[in-house]
């Protein structure tokens, strides 16, 4: 009996000596641990995008960009097959939290592309960062996400990067556009409570006030509102020269279309944010969209044309929103970081250190992406921002976008130039 117990303890001891070695990985000295990829196993990438609900077009757009980036590499990296695991992060903090928990539980995932929305990122960042993973956002832009000052509302944590521009860059340029090019003296801002729209409205209002303008109305609508008569009446009473409206579809369509029926707002300009930079927006809004300004991603060049051709071949038609190129770049810098961080052990197992991936991403400098030369920054309020903000412009909707399916619209102001250079053009 005693012998049997001794033998059992001996076997357990032997296993206990073997177990830690296989769990932590032989030869892995990364402080955050390593992802082990066996010789015949795939390298797994996570995606955390909005694929259901009213703004699912945003997730579809980014998912296409990621898939095309994988396809361009023959769906292989370092001799391993590339596998994509998709989770729906919705466009809410709860959705982001749930998606991040599912992805963080999968130890095979080397990094995550996402989230689509800033609200989802707020829920996801603590979980992804806590798991030692990285997430690269292709379309969220809230300034709070790259600000690590919690007292100032910041929510940045290590491991969060993004290829989309920071709302600070977009908001400040939008306010300059309103003041210097549209000659506006009074502005009204409207958001929908989402961190993205609220953040942009805040930056525009603050910048406009700093430039000497008057912020005459700061209000909000609810997601899902269809009747805007009440808020439009309130805005008309405050007599603005321009309305800043960073809302998503369909609220932005309802707002622009119903504005026509409100006395006092006939000559007021509207500036929309990147959320309205969707090919369907002018067509769905109709005549009311003509003359409306929308700031959004400006991507061009031969490589981008090739991406659009690949999109047409793979999915048919054109991408549903403007962030597919950012998602394409996000996937590419992640895959390059994985390739840099990976070390092949003697037994053919790839060891990919989690902090090594973070370091490789943070070291990204002048990466020639479709959206410009990407350099990932480390200092708050731009911690994790890899976009330079140059792939942005102010567009103006014309009849061609409303009636002839033209997209993208003509550029009213290129953000790379100073307002003074273009005022009066």
């Amino acid at each position: 009996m005693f012998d049997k117990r001794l033998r059992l303890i001996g076997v357990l001891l032997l296993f206990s000596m073997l177990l830690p070695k296989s769990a932590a990985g032989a030869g892995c000295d990364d402080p955050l641990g390593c992802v082990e990829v066996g010789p015949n196993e795939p390298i797994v990438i996570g995606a955390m995008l909005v694929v259901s609900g009213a703004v699912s077009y945003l997730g579809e757009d980014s998912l296409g960009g990621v898939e095309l980036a994988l396809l361009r590499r023959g769906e292989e990296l370092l001799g391993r097959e590339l596998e994509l695991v998709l989770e729906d992060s919705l466009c809410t903090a709860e959705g982001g939290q749930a998606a991040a928990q599912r992805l963080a539980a999968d130890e095979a995932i080397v990094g995550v592309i996402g989230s689509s929305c800033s609200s989802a990122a707020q829920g996801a960042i603590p979980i992804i960062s806590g798991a030692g993973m990285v997430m690269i956002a292709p379309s969220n832009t809230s300034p709070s996400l790259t600000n690590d000052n919690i007292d100032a509302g910041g929510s940045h944590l290590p491991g969060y990067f993004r290829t989309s521009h920071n709302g600070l860059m977009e908001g400040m340029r939008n306010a300059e556009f309103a003041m210097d090019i549209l000659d506006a003296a009074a502005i009204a801002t409207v958001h929908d409570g989402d961190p993205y729209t609220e953040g942009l409205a805040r930056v525009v209002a603050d910048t406009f006030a700093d430039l000497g303008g008057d912020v005459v109305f700061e209000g909000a609508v609810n997601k899902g509102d269809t009747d805007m008569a009440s808020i439009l009446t309130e805005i008309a009473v405050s007599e603005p020269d321009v309305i800043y409206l960073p809302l998503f579809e369909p609220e932005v369509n309802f707002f622009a279309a119903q504005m026509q029926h409100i006395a006092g707002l006939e000559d007021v300009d509207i500036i929309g944010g990147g959320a309205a930079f969707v090919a369907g927006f002018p067509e769905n809004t109709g005549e009311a969209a003509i003359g409306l300004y929308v700031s959004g991603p400006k991507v061009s060049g031969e490589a981008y044309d090739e991406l659009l051709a690949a999109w047409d071949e793979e999915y048919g038609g054109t991408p549903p929103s403007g962030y597919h190129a950012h998602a394409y770049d996000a996937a590419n810098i992640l895959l390059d970081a994985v390739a840099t961080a990976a070390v092949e052990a003697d037994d053919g197992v790839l060891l990919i250190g989690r902090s090594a991936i973070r370091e490789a991403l943070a070291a990204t400098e002048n990466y020639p992406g479709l959206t410009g030369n990407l350099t990932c920054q480390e200092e708050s309020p731009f911690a994790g921002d890899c976009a330079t903000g140059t792939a942005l412009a102010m567009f103006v909707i014309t009849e061609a976008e409303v009636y002839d399916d033209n997209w993208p619209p003509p550029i009213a102001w290129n953000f790379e130039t100073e307002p003074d250079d273009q005022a009066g053009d």
Partner: protein
Amino acid sequence: MFKWRTDDFSWVDFTIDVLRVIIVLGVVIGAWNTLSSGRISLAQWVNLFAAGLSQGSIYALIALGYTLVYGILLMINFAHGEVFMAGAFSTVFLAEALNRTGFLNAQPLLAILLMIAFAGLVSMSVAILLERIAYRPLRGSPRLVPLITAIGASFFLQYTFRGLYGSGFKAYPGVNALQGAIEIGGISIPVVQVFVFCAAIFLMLCLYWLVERTRVGKAMRAVSENKEVARLMGIDIDWVIMFTFGVGGFLAGSAGVINGLFRPQGVNFYMGFIPGIKAFTAAVLGGIGNIPGAMLGGLFLGVIEAIGPNLVLAGLGIPGANQLKDVIAFTMLVLVLIFRPQGILGERLSETKA
């Protein structure tokens, strides 16, 4: 009115009465502050009221579907918002085709009737299939079972239509005959709002005539009163229930087209969710199971949503008053449930029906 003054003092009654006084004072003070400030002109108030009536008439049309089904089966069909979406989303393609051929603007009345008929048929088919496949097998089971099934059916329909037509937004084309405004005493009201209100009232009157003046309406009322006795009188209960779902579906589909003419944007698979919830609120406000109640509840909710934020909340100095529009709608629901649980026009239900 003030029960707490009598000998049998009750803290509950006292609290409710205090709540009544606070609410009435809040409304009066808010409205007084707003009106005395003169910030919003009479023309703007009339415009808000007209827009609220139009929006409310769409809520009312959808609410009728909830109330009809509740009246006959005592169940809340939470998938009814999706029945509305099915008609509206399917017909946007017909509307685009009619616009491309020029028929929509050459024969606007005929084209709108065609669209309403098509949307009505689509929604009617969806509602009947829903009853036949999802609800009928569960008839007689505890009331929570069909309720949960309805929520599941709602998601099923949303994502089925997303699969069919995609996740992007579509918009109804503009109808030239409905552009412009009618001038009355210096106040202009958009033609489309007048059309929406009249069309909705006409459909509601048709329904009232169907239920009150026809044989099938009598059968519906009989089934609503007592299914077993109605069966003994030779009424085919299954057929009457299916017919009721069909009528509710037709009204929801029609509401989809009327909504498309009024608010052309935002047509997608998700568009039925919020109007569905609002219409349910309207049905409860009016007194669920009561047809004129659903109509009145819808109109009341539409108007309160339109003028409430500017009239009461802004007057009380509450910031972001417009974002609290839904708060007003659902607060109205809570208040009605507290002070008049049977709804504005509803009757107190007996234990078996409640």
